């Protein structure tokens, strides 16, 4: 997706602006300063800032680290590494676009992954049934979140803070924290590891999880931008009262957003089995934070109504590029943590700056 950037100059940035869809930003043609125009442009194309950061970071590490970083293998390795976070972040983006937050996404992912694995491995269900059950369970978890937010009228932060613990604890109780080993799964239910299957094109290596991430992103992008449901999601995030007055069934849409997010998390849970081979209750415990980090760095506003799926994908990739790049450069892992923290703050600061034009 983000192949082979070479230039770091501002002109390159301008070029990428020219290539993008600016049709939405059809403002009147009064004279404006450069800054103001940039601000407007970024307001209408929230994925541009993260794309720019991603290209600059990739180019910089390619120069500093050299071919070890700038190789098809390494660049596709980053895709593999961010696939799980990218998928969960897609779910998180949907929620955040409605001005909500979902802290339970990671817990839903691990819960569904453990349930799929255990009903197949321990209870002997056929693999497709086990997977379908896991995905349905993900949707049910999302539905619980959605009902608590809309019917009980609790803030999403509180609801998902609670369900995060509930889902995680339910998973621990159900599984007695037991790991099921990769070799046993490969022997009995290889379909569970489907998304770990690799696919080589020259030096580039993809896992099916990478395709899942990209396909999901394309679908969600299409739905958000080209269907009534998608526009309603943005409208609710921007101003729920106005959306309601305009005839949007706010509660129903919100519940559906949480259900879809839950289903996407369950898909991530399936992909997680492929990634780590095993069914592991211990894995993925920080995935909610990783996902929200990707969303925020990807330029989606935590205040709702503004942002894009592509930005989220770029956000996840930025974290992946920095993690691998800094490691290959020879820094301690602490520096990755520090850099990602700084990126979050920069991203939110830019968001605030961009938002100022609407006030």
């Amino acid at each position, binding site marked *: 997706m983000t192949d082979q950037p070479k230039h770091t100059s501002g002109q390159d940035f301008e070029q990428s602006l020219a290539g993008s869809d600016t049709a939405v930003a059809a403002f009147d043609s009064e004279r404006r300063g450069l800054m103001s125009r940039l601000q407007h442009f970024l307001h209408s194309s929230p994925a541009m800032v993260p794309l720019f950061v991603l290209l600059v970071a990739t180019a910089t590490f390619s120069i500093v680290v050299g071919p*070890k970083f700038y190789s098809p*293998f*390494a660049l596709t*390795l980053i895709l*593999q*590494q961010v696939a*799980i976070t990218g998928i969960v972040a897609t779910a998180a983006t949907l929620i955040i676009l409605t001005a909500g937050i979902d802290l339970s996404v990671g817990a839903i992912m691990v819960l569904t992954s453990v349930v799929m694995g255990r009903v197949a491995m321990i209870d002997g269900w056929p693999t497709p049934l086990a997977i379908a059950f896991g995905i349905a369970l993900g949707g049910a978890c999302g539905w619980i979140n959605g009902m608590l937010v809309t019917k009980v009228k609790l803030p999403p932060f509180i609801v998902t803070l609670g369900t995060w*613990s509930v889902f*995680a604890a339910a998973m*621990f109780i159900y599984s*007695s*924290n*037991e*790991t*099921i*080993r*990769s*070799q046993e799964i490969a022997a009995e239910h290889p379909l569970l590891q489907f998304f*770990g299957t*690799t696919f080589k094109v020259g030096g580039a*290596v993809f896992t099916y999880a990478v395709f899942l991430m990209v396909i999901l992103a394309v679908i969600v992008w299409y739905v958000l931008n080209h269907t009534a449901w998608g526009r309603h999601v943005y409208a609710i995030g921007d101003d729920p009262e106005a959306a309601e007055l305009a005839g949007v069934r706010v509660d129903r849409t919100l519940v559906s957003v949480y259900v879809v997010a839950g289903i996407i998390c369950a898909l991530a849970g399936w992909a*997680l089995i492929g*990634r*780590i*081979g*095993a069914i*592991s*209750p*211990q*894995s*993925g*415990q*920080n995935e909610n934070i990783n996902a929200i980090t990707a969303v925020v760095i990807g330029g989606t506003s935590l205040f709702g109504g503004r942002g894009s799926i592509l930005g989220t994908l770029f956000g996840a990739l930025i974290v992946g590029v920095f*993690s*691998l790049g800094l*490691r*290959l450069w*020879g820094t*301690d*892992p*602490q520096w990755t*943590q520090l850099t990602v923290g700084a990126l979050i703050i920069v991203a939110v600061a830019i968001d605030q700056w961009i938002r100022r034009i609407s006030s």
Partner: protein
Amino acid sequence: MKTISRAALACAVVAGGLTAVPAFAADISACLITKTDTNPFFVKMKEGATAKAAELGITLKSYAGKIDGDNETQVAAIETCIADGAKGILLVPSDTKAIVPTVQKARDAGILVIALDTPLEPITAADATFATDNFKAGELIGAWAAGTLGDKAKDARIAMLDLATNQPTVGVLRDQGFMQGFGMDLADPNKWGDETDPRVIGHDVTSGNEQGGRTAMENLMQKDPGVNVVYTINEPAAAGAFEALKAVGLESQALIVSVDGGCPGVQNVQEGVIGATSQQYPLLMASMGIEAIKQFADDGTLPANTPGLDFFNTGVNLVTDKPVEGVPSISVEEGLALCWG
């Protein structure tokens, strides 16, 4: 006649039961505070403590932090135990330094505090520490890896898969123990990452799970594809590292060593995924801790340290089916009989 004797017997049992109840609740209560209640290691620990407490007639209350590193919940748990009039606290500290003042409060209140698994800093902040000798655990796998490689050890390419960036003691001890066992200069033995031995291709962190292990292994392999020894902080991280190696077809090139001795881990040793692992014994730590609290409550005796160490070593064994001369080990079969989780 028969009925009468039966009734008498029943009376006796009831009476016995009644008198036994107050004796039972001779008000020895104890607390077990673990890092989390999710890790199988702590689950096993709780099992050991619960069984021993029931046997000795001690009321046991268990607490756990929400996540590894959650100090506040542990502080609150200790305060609850003080208020509750507990005789002893078994603590697996999440933050080995920050919890010390709270531990002191408990000791001032006359409570015996025993650190399990993870020593406090300083180690003397607790009345006693019952733990695996994590340095020794690392040393065993280091020596085993060096012995297995033989002459090739001097050209080894070693990936170090550690726990977390804040370098908790347990992670540092295992890492540095491994290096010592392998025959490397440690520089400062209180931290990892400052060594200059060219055989180490790098350190990365895993959070001690499969997902982290896989990503860390991928990163380090990208740094040096010739990696042939992989140190891992625990067996889930080792399983993740193996998946990463397998994905690029290098699983037979690298020797993976680990620490823990959980059942899935020992099975992985059996199948050759992990070369050798150092097994520790959480159940024993907890049950011995409860015994020590009982002893202390009865006559005030404090538990003693293992000679030569500043804690009581609950033991560690190297589990492998490919023993190396000069490195004591037990077989996978024995390891499976003793495994936890």
